């Protein structure tokens, strides 16, 4: 049931974007970041054969059962409260009456990582807190996803100094919500984006409206079984990477 693509891969003329092309473009984007050359004979040669097969196989939705499971999962996330700082107050207010996250099944905020499958990192992650956040993320059961809420978590935001670590340095993040603190509606938008991502038709937002194909910078994960982590950058904090990352 692989979706056809009108134009040749990579030119982005097709209606729906085929996930593996997206996957390859995403990995190429990362290769670019790492300084690899994209103009080589075969852009997707950056990945070895088996590794590339595993990515494609895992990220493409094959059976209808998995589609049903993905639908069920995406409509009933149990977020693990990780209130670190100011964003936690805005995260609390998405549970409140005005911007009610219970409408989408996200209301059951679990305290322990064992019962949660979505980690909303709301606030600043200091270097003292990074190993703890990583340990909590490792102790969450698969399939698990992570939303990094606010500028501090996505990129040390206002405080670019010795004390903070952006969450991407030590754990795979699926959705970054900008803002300092993001409005509750912004976090709700991020949550809904994750929901569609898990249902494997990533919401392209403005790219769809203006048909701006090929401008995706980095979409870390596509595919129903949760994100597949491909990058292994050395973590700023010497956190042992043996704990597996998101997804299958």
């Amino acid at each position, binding site marked *: 049931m692989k979706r056809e693509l009108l134009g040749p891969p990579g030119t982005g003329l097709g209606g729906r974007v085929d996930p593996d092309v997206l996957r390859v473009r995403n990995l190429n984007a990362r290769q670019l970041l790492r300084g690899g050359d994209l103009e080589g004979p075969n852009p997707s040669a950056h990945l070895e054969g088996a590794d590339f097969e595993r990515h494609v196989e895992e990220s493409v939705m094959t059976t209808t059962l998995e589609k049903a499971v993905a639908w069920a999962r995406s409509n009933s996330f149990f977020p693990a409260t990780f209130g670190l700082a100011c964003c936690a107050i805005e995260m609390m207010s998405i549970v409140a009456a005005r911007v009610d996250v219970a409408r989408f099944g996200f209301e059951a905020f679990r305290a322990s990582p064992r019962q949660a499958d979505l980690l909303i990192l709301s606030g*600043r992650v200091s270097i003292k807190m990074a190993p703890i956040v990583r340990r909590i993320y490792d102790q969450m059961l698969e399939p698990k996803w992570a939303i990094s809420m606010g500028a501090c978590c996505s990129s040390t935001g206002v405080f670019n100094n010795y004390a903070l670590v952006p969450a991407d340095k030590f754990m795979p993040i699926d959705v970054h919500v900008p803002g300092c603190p993001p409005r509750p509606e912004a976090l709700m938008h991020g949550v809904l984006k994750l929901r569609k991502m898990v249902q494997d038709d990533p919401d392209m937002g403005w790219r769809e409206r203006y048909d701006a194909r090929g401008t995706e910078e980095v979409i870390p994960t596509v595919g129903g079984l949760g994100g597949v982590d491909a990058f292994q950058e050395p973590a700023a904090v010497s956190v042992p990477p043996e704990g597996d990352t998101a997804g299958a």
Partner: protein
Amino acid sequence: MSPTGQATPGTSPSMSDYRRREQSITLSSVEEQLDQASTEELLTLNFGPHHPATHGVLRLLVTLQGEIVREIKPIIGYVHTGIEKTAEDKAYWKVIPVIERMDYLSYYFNAYAYCGAVETLLEVEVPKRAQYLRVIHMELNRIMSHLVWLGTSALDLGAISMFWYCFREREKILDLFEMSSGQRMHTRYFQVGGVIEDIPSGFAHKLNGLLEEMPSRIDQYGALLNSNEIVLQRLRGICPLDAQTLLSLGVTGPLLRAAGNPWDLRKADPYCSYEDFDFKIPVGTVGDNYDRYACRLAEMYESVKIVQQALDGLPEGPHITEDRKVALPPRHELATSMEALIHHFKLVTEGFRVPPGEVYFPIESPRGELGCFVRSDGSSKPARVHMRDPSFVNLQSFSHMAKGAYIADLIATLAMLDPILGGIDR
């Protein structure tokens, strides 16, 4: 800094050296300090950074004897953002957004403590209207901070619906903040010398609407909780601390007033034209958890009264100081006058220079005395900005309060302490 020698049993050799070093605060050291005479098995637990009841990332090393808490060691620093270091690297007026993110529930107070200190250094005279606007926003912020405290503390005690009521009011107050400054939290509304913009026309009307219904809403919270059997059992007579010990520990704010000492900087040492308003200071008697709860609830009434008086008596005049060396000239002036353009350019590029000196500017934040120490070396960047955060000092009294209590009382006492970890860790 003596990591206690051997790696703790059960840690796998493959663990990174950082993890092994991070465990240098082994728990066994806490157990030895306690007298081993008690036959009961001592259990030391991490009431750790990731815990629903610690109101942020506070880690308590709790040594338990069965259900009774024998020893508490708070370990903080898990959300340390190096804000005071970052503040030294920015121009004076760029420090405000960084400072506001310290105690993230009382951002107007952080901004005012810092602006007050810099205005004292510059000897800038803040116009009356700006002072009244500042009082309005600070008292609304105090109500909002107490609402978030009430919502989360009632949640800790099991009264879940309180959370939704309190956040309903909080949304109304944040609408007002958004109306006056464009953003809900960390609004950067206070500038050095006054406020950045005058309040829009519909602000007074909407604020009056809120002030009318606020007292009845607080009555509802009181009706729900004041004589509720469970709340009385959990709070009345639990973990009291007398005023003298609190004073020696440097505790200020609702905790001190609950113990009977009516020390409130707004009355004792009025600043920002607080002397024009008539309001009372709620003072407790015994100093137990119920008094701390009742004091904060009563403070909300007083804050509503202050905002009402400030709004009615709002004087006309400029919303920011006329001194162009400190405040940006209005946009329309840029088109016409040359020196306004020069002032604008100078302020925007380098920022104003502050004469060298040191100032400590204390104000009354919802959690106690919030003092901002600013040292300037004559350049356009502060040489040192230190915030004396009330939660940081109040946290020291927590082990005195909760030692010997049950675990459930530990949670209730921590909720009534109202620690904000952003302010503690800075």
